């Protein structure tokens, strides 16, 4: 680093030599002149005169050796720091404003970056795809968020015939109970086919992957553990590999452990089990599996879609739904592959929310910048004399501008540093309290990219709020201010224009943010009024209990056990009633669906009737959950144990099939020709099964104990729903003591039964609207910040104008103006700005809120009520903010104001 050494160490020597040389020059010149006969004094003066400005020349000579721009910059930095220190109130207000703005931006950006921008945590994850399919021809399916899932036969057809995938597989999530160690425990299970782990390509931490041989229908059952479960249950003991654990009362051999941090697509899990499909037994139907694949290098999604389209006929030719059925019946479904990158599937519909939030937070930042600009404008105004002196002493205007910019950028960067600290705290809070359904939540962290982003917006905003004051006041005309210091001269209109425009902009932006927050509030209110199909969610305790086949084999015994549990639960003090069903609304376990046939209707064998949502319920379920019976009655235990063919239907289904709910009662339906006709004994109100915002599906409620469903072949054996959600209505729901009694009650019936997903329906509901509440909270915060900043902005400007016009107001009062007139004059100035801002804001809001239409429910983006309310409220608050300084203006004492000169 020779240049550094030269510039730092030898520079002193260079300067010394230069100085010596210059003085020698003057001496020599003086001597010369004296030799020519000039007196000493005169000669010295003449020598200096001839030489020119000695100091300047010496400085110019030195400048040659300096890294000029850097040193000027450092000087500006030092000067800026001094200025910031000398004005602590300004500095603190400015810094806090910027810090909050940048902190919020950095926090939201880190979320956007972690969730939307960063690739998934798998090797070459861009090759991973989700096998999404739609079936527009399959009536009743259209509502399902997942499109048409894959059947096992589809998996076989695709994996055997594809040309575009390097591996392909299917998976599903579920639960199982692990027994044999301490208390029975319900664990989260992912069941995979061969090809899934190969596609994800994440090597095991210990042992090996599940492989093709583990899929053999009659082979031994094996299992992999998640890192977390391995640590929790076996303390990371490697000798556990090869040993057995009891899963659903069945011994499974542990073959491997997945590494730390491995998540299955976007789910946490404890165990990975293998499907054991018997290829020979597969039929076409059974669309319940998620398909995942890895594209061959270079293959595109379009090619993969074409590949699937090509394989669909192969699938229909290779399998059937049983003798006498037409396999090509599925052509009417118009099954179409819509393969998506796995990342898109993981992110889901949250990207819209995040971009909207990012946009609003960006707007808040702009408002904050406007405020700081205003502060700087005021400050530069009061520093005009100083700037004029600097200019008069020879500072170029570029130099003054750069000095001011360095100051504002420093303010930005310092604010940014505090802001990053705030962002750290904010992200921590977000991850801790964040919506559980925000995908990749565990991956959210502030990384390098966020820091770069924060730094960039710090500098940019510093430039942004520094440029306006710098160019306004440091332009090449500063002599005027030197004389006056802005004391006598009345304030020109032009001088306030920048500030007024900033305030108008702030009001407009605040209005946009408040309108979007208002729309979310309306959405939330609309969601709250939806008739969900259950009541008083806070007092509904739910939990899931599964009874494995190996624990209790006989279906009737399963139901008897469940009823025994109900009896014990009902005996707990404070319990009003208890019941169970295959699932509660919005739980998302994915119940079944199939078509039904009506008695006395002739069906075309080549058309599949619409698919209906199937649920199994216990007697008393609707009374417990709070769903209204529109007609008829609930089933009884006698009917259940007698396997009596009775059924309930939802109101929308009843209306569709028979016109009115009342007409439905007594009608008969069945699932297959081989089944007895079931009589409709009751009609239940529509239930929002798939979420508050999703329309209620047409539903059939079967008894929990009846002939096997979804299975065409005879003989029909009796079947009981083994995995059910128990629902208990009690004012004590959710309390620890209550849950303890619930557990004891269950275990008094069978001590091997674990309880899972223990929560209240309020939790389920909150999860279902989490996306909306998250958006609401974020927009609410942004709106509140915008409002606060906007109010501070308008207050500040009006105050400043009043203080500048003190003398003028004094003269007006002295000449006989009424205090009312003065008040009106100041208020009207504020009102003009606010009105302009509101008008611009309304136009902007109409244009921008369209972007969030997808997040709204029960309200349009152009909701006049929201727009009107926000506009009026904003105007009132803004006028109040003007009122305080306006009143101060009326208090001006004419004599004091005039004598002030």
């Amino acid at each position, binding site marked *: 680093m020779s240049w550094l050494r030269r510039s730092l160490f030898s520079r002193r020597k260079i300067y010394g030599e230069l100085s010596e040389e210059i003085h020698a020059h003057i001496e*020599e*010149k003086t001597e010369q002149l004296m030799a020519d006969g000039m007196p000493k004094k005169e000669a010295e003066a003449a020598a200096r005169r001839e*030489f*020119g400005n000695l100091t300047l*020349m010496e400085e110019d000579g*030195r400048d*040659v*050796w300096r890294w000029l721009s850097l040193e000027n910059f450092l000087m500006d930095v030092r000067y800026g720091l001094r200025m910031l220190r000398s004005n602590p109130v300004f500095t603190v207000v400015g810094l806090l404003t910027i810090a909050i703005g940048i902190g919020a931006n950095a926090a939201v950006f880190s979320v956007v970056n972690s969730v939307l921008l960063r690739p998934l945590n798998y090797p070459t994850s861009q090759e991973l795809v989700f096998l999404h399919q739609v079936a527009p021809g399959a009536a009743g399916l259209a509502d399902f968020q997942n499109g048409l899932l894959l059947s096992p036969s589809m998996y076989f057809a695709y994996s055997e015939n594809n040309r575009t995938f390097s591996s392909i597989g299917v998976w599903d999530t579920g639960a199982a109970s692990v027994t044999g160690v301490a208390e029975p425990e319900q664990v989260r299970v992912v069941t995979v086919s061969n090809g899934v782990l190969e596609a994800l390509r994440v090597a095991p931490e210990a042992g090996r992957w599940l492989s093709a041989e583990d899929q053999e229908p009659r082979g031994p059952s094996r299992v992999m553990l998640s890192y977390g479960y391995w640590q929790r249950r076996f303390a990371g003991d490697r000798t556990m590999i090869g040993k057995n654990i009891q899963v659903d009362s069945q011994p499974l051999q542990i073959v491997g452990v997945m590494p730390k941090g491995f998540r299955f697509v976007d789910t946490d899990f404890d165990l990975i089990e293998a499907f054991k499909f018997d290829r020979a037994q597969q039929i076409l139907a059974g669309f319940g599996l998620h398909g995942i694949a890895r594209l061959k290098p270079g293959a595109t999604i379009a090619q993969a879609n074409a590949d699937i389209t090509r394989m669909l006929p192969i699938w229909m030719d290779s399998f059937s739904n049983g003798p006498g059925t037409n396999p090509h019946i599925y052509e009417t479904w118009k099954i179409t592959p819509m393969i998506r990158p796995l990342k898109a599937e993981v992110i889901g519909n949250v990207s819209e929310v995040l971009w909207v939030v990012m946009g609003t937070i960006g707007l808040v930042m702009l408002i904050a910048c406007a405020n700081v600009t205003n502060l700087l404008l005021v400050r530069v105004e009061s520093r005009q004399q100083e700037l004029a002196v600097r200019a008069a002493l020879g500072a170029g205007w570029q130099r003054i501008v750069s000095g001011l910019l360095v100051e504002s950028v420093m303010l930005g960067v310092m604010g940014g540093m505090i802001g990053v600290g705030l962002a750290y705290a904010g992200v921590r809070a977000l991850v801790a309290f964040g919506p559980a359904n925000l995908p990749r939540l565990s991956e959210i962290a502030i990384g390098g990219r966020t820091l770069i982003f924060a730094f960039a917006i710090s500098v940019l905003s510093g430039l942004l709020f520094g440029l306006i004051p710098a160019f306004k006041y440091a332009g090449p005309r500063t002599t005027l201010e030197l004389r006056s210091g802005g004391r006598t001269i009345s304030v020109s209109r032009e001088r306030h224009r920048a500030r007024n425009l900033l305030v108008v902009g702030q009001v407009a932006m605040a209005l946009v943010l408040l309108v979007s927050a208002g729309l979310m509030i309306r959405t939330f209110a609309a969601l709250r009024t939806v008739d969900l199909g259950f009541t008083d969610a806070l007092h509904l305790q739910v939990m899931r209990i599964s009874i494995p086949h190996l624990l209790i084999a006989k279906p009737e015994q399963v139901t008897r056990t469940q009823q025994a549990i109900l009896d014990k639960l009902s005996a707990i003090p404070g319990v009003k009633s208890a019941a169970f069903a295959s699932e509660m609304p919005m739980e998302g376990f994915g119940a079944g669906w199939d078509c039904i046939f009506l008695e006395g209707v002739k069906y075309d064998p080549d058309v599949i009737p619409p698919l209906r949502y199937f649920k199994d319920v216990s007697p008393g379920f609707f009374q417990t959950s709070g769903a209204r019976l529109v007609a008829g009655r609930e089933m009884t235990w006698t009917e259940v144990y007698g396997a009596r063919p009775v059924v309930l239907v939802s109101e929308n289904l009843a209306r569709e099939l028979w016109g009115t709910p009342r007409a439905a009662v007594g009608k008969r339906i069945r699932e297959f020709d081989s089944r007895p006709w079931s009589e409709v004994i009751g009609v239940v109100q529509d239930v929002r099964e798939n979420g508050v915002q999703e329309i209620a599906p047409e539903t059939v409620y079967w008894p929990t104990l009846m002939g096997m469903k979804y299975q065409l072949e005879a003989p029909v054996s009796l079947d009981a729903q083994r995995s059910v959600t128990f629902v208990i209505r009690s004012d004590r729901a959710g309390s620890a003591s209550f849950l303890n009694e619930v557990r004891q009650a269950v275990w008094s019936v069978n001590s091997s039964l674990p309880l899972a997903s223990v929560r209240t329906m309020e939790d389920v509901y909150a999860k279902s609207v989490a996306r909306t509440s998250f958006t609401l909270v974020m927009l609410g915060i942004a709106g509140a910040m915008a409002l606060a900043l906007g109010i501070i902005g308008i207050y500040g400007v009006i105050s400043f104008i009043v203080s500048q016009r003190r003398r003028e107001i004094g003269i007006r009062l002295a000449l006989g103006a009424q205090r009312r007139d003065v008040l009106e004059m100041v208020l009207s100035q504020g009102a003009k700005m606010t009105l302009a801002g509101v008008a611009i804001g309304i136009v902007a809001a109409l244009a921008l809120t369209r972007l969030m239409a997808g997040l709204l429910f029960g309200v349009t983006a152009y909701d006049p009520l929201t727009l009107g309310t926000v506009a009026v409220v904003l105007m009132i608050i803004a006028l109040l903010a003007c009122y305080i300084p306006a009143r101060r203006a009326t208090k001006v004492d004419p004599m004091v104001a005039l004598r002030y000169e």
Partner: protein
Amino acid sequence: MSKEKQRDLFPGALEMMILRTLKRQPLHGYALVQHIKRNSDDLLQIEEGSLYPALQRLLKEELVKAEWGVSSTNRRVRIYKLTAAGAKHLEREVSRFERMLEGITRVLSPEES
């Protein structure tokens, strides 16, 4: 007081004259400026001090080098010498200047129809 007018005709002119003068013989600062003034028949009003920043620039670009020595008046002075790079630079600058001068002269000369 129109300082600018006296100081430099155009950027680089002073440097060129310094280099040209040093080409003839190594000189120290004072002698150098006297030499330039004399040779220009005092047509060019050069502030003597402006020589030094120019010399520093040339030193930095290594077009001249300096050594401490003793002047004819028995004073410790820095004597400047042209370097090889300086000689080359001078040649290039002079030819560029001549071209420029020619161009200017042609434009300024009375037009011939």
